[in-house]
């Protein structure tokens, strides 16, 4: 199971790929809404998948500060480190 930032980022990109157009490149700086067109419904579905993968619960409130792939990976990292 992924435990550090790089592994988490890699797994997150794998899940993100299912929610965005195939031609779009995903980097840590990619904006989830502007570039990947992840709307609120897709974001919540993505979060459910990520929660299962990392065995965490991501509070909805925490998502308000998330805009990029890096920020989401960091949030997962932070929650993972406080719960494991």
């Amino acid at each position, binding site marked *: 199971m992924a435990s550090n930032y790089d592994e988490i980022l890699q797994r997150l990109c794998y899940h993100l790929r299912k929610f965005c157009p195939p031609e779009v490149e995903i980097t840590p700086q990619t904006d989830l809404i502007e570039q990947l067109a992840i*709307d*609120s*419904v*897709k974001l*919540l*579905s993505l979060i*459910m998948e990520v929660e299962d993968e990392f*065995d*965490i*619960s*991501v*509070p*909805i*409130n925490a998502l308000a500060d998330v805009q990029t792939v890096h920020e989401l990976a960091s949030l997962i990292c932070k929650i993972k480190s406080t*719960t494991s």
Partner: protein
Amino acid sequence: MKLLDKLDAVAATRKSLLPEGFDVFGIPIEEVYSSTEARINDRRILFLGTNNYLGLTFSPECLQAAQEAIASEGTGTTGSRMANGSYSGHRALESEFAEFYGCKSCIVFTTGYQANLATISGLAGAGDVVLIDGDSHASIYDGCRLSGAEIIRFRHNDMTDLEKRLKRLGERSTSTLIVVEGIYSMLGDKAPLVDIVRLKNAYHSTLLLDEAHSLGVLGETGQGLVEETGLIEEVDFITGTFSKSLGGIGGYCVSNHPQLDQLRYISRPYIFTASPTPATIASTRAALRLLRDGATLRRQLWQNAHQLYSRLSELGYRLGPEPSPIIATIVDTPRDAIALWKGLLDRGIYVNLIVPPAAPEGKSLVRCSVSAVHTNEQMTYIGDTFAELREVFQ
């Protein structure tokens, strides 16, 4: 981005999604004839989306009570109960609701939306957790936001997912408020309350059940899912609305926890708004009496619900998982939903249109709500119209 640019973006999205020159979310009702019929433009239409489950909006008892209250107490209270006092009707309705549920206390709120806002934000706060079903109503989400508590969603009606999340919380599960609904407004399915109560007890959490769509609909006396399941002692707080089965506007919370009363002093959606009008309180009191004694109406409601659900199912419409007075046809795109909704309206049937992000899982819904007072003739016409449209939209 300038302040108002985001509203232009909303307008652009609506324009791309909805038909030109036709405001599907602002249909003008020119005249209301009864609980089930009204006029839109020059056309007599059938209401099939109003949540008027028992058809009480034109009940003579409710009309008379409201008229007498206006004559004796005026049109409004012009302020909050904290500032302007509690009229006898407000206090009486709270006693009657508490007695109806066999609970120690009740608070009445100005709308059902505020009942959830006030109760959730009053019970939970910073450092607490609210664990809510993914299909929760907006009032639940907004109440959670207002509370400042950590908000965690579990998959709709998925008890394995709920338990997983309770387990992850560790000791924090004791400061967790689980929020579920008796009947979910989108697909009309019920919460698995037996399992939810088992988990709530196992993890020492607190449970709030919103009976907005199940009050008057489930249980021998219409208490809702708590009565149908016999679990009233196990549910900590029950909220609900006056705007569906009771045919008015307002909301309530009942509980056996003595702490409920403290919400009157800390809960902003209770404190900082005007209390319900005397007419609303009076008609709701009359409606509550009719609801308690409404076993015949409930039987008729469920007969209509089963009839329409079976007919639409036989016709091949994709529906919610179980028969209920809320019958949602599920379609893949907003365009398909609008076409079906418009087809029904053109044939004199007015239902609810629900498009993303309001509908679950990115789908779109054309949602019907049947009433106890829909006649056999009306129910047959509704079924026949859906059959005709099935041919058109095959």
